[in-house]
């Protein structure tokens, strides 16, 4: 195992970098981080639009959610990879294609979490906010979202973890990331596939466990703050 890691450690960690694009675990981290950084703000906007009284906004956001959560991620990846260049007339690098597909796909799921979170805030909270003279966006920002987001943490973490793991399928269009590295190693080694993919699985497990841990701490902190126990 040690010799295996010695030989392939760098390929696992950073892919073919510095002789090629950065990949491996680092590639996955970058893809997942950018994916979430793009999908979450988009989901906030879409989720809020889903709860708004504005009919066109509501229709558009609902259409977005229903469309993209009903299509497998891999279909979106393929469409973006094969169809987009035909439509816009030039090649898009695989990394950007994958990133865009992940953002589109995950934003649909996250938006539903945001919508449910906003609707879980008691109506009396909104009434109290409006009664002291706050407007729609002030109410959203100062009263609804702080409470909603803190209620949403468990579901958000669920979706974040799922996003991290979902990045693994984009190796299929040649994006350099952890699963791609494992695939490369496997084709060099030919034997010991179990070992190779065990290392890969362990990487995803540790990453997701770490995220879950951090989220749990944040959740506890917010809970304590409400109870006046946080320092």
């Amino acid at each position: 195992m040690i010799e295996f890691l010695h030989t392939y450690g760098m390929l696992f960690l950073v892919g073919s970098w510095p002789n090629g694009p950065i990949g491996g675990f680092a590639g996955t981290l970058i893809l997942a981080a950018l994916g979430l950084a793009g999908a979450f703000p988009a989901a906030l906007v879409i989720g809020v639009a889903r709860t708004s009284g504005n009919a066109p906004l509501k229709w558009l956001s609902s259409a977005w959610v229903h469309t993209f959560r009903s299509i497998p991620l891999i279909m979106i990846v393929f469409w973006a990879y094969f169809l987009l260049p035909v439509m816009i007339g030039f090649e898009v690098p695989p990394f950007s294609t994958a990133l865009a597909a992940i953002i589109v796909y995950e934003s649909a799921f996250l938006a539903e979490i945001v919508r449910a979170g906003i609707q879980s805030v008691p109506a009396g909270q909104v009434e109290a906010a409006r009664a002291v003279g706050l407007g729609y966006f002030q109410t959203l920002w100062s009263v609804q979202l702080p409470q909603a987001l803190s209620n949403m943490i468990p579901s958000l973490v669920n979706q974040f973890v799922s996003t991290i793991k979902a990045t693994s399928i984009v190796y299929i269009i040649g994006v350099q990331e952890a699963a791609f590295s494992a695939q490369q190693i496997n084709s060099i080694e030919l034997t010991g596939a179990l070992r190779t993919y065990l290392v890969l699985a362990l990487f995803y497990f540790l990453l997701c466990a770490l995220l879950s841990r951090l989220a749990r701490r944040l959740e506890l902190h917010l809970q304590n703050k409400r109870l006046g126990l946080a320092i």
Partner: protein
Amino acid sequence: MIQFEGVNKWYKRYHALNNICGEVRAGEVLVVCGPSGSGKSTMIRTINKLEEIQSGTIRVEGQSICGEKVDINRLRAKIGFVFQQFNLFPHLSVKDNIALSPVKVGGMARNEAYALAEELLHKVGLGDKLDAMPANLSGGQQQRVAIARALAQKPTLLLFDEPTSALDPEMVGEVLNVMKSLAAEGMTMVCVTHEMNFAREVADRVWFMDRGEILEDAPPAEFFSRPRHERARKFLADIIH
């Protein structure tokens, strides 16, 4: 201060407010009572447009609050509203609950708003709870914070929607005392309440509502001793046991 002119409201086919006409003068304390489902909460909530009406006119300080042109947030900013369920913001400390409107709506500096919060908390007898979280307060304390929050808007009018109905009996007094002192200062108040002693002592006038109508509009002495309407007599008999 407030005028109702032929106000009607329906929920689907249910006639919730039926031709409400009446006036509340500046400095007056009006108590609204009636059986549950009589429309009293709906009525008080139309005054700051938490409920829309379908016909008629409501004027606050001489200006109609109906129609598209009304700046609803400016209207609400000068009307304090106290809810049955307090509705404090649980993620904000007591002082932030009180400072929210002055800062966000009134454009007050945060320090100044905190000073105002402290002053108002003293007024409602909670001077030591500035940094407490709502979850750590009793129901009576939460409702007094809610009153302080309403006062922070420097309202010309205070509306109370069953402010003591969600409280344990031993906490009703502390909230009523705050309300009495506000009445003594000359605040214009509309209170939906079942506290008949409060009505007797503090109210200038009592409205009795049933099935969306105002059946009695009288000074408390008259209302309690000589209720004119049969349903008011039955209500009083049921409530005072």
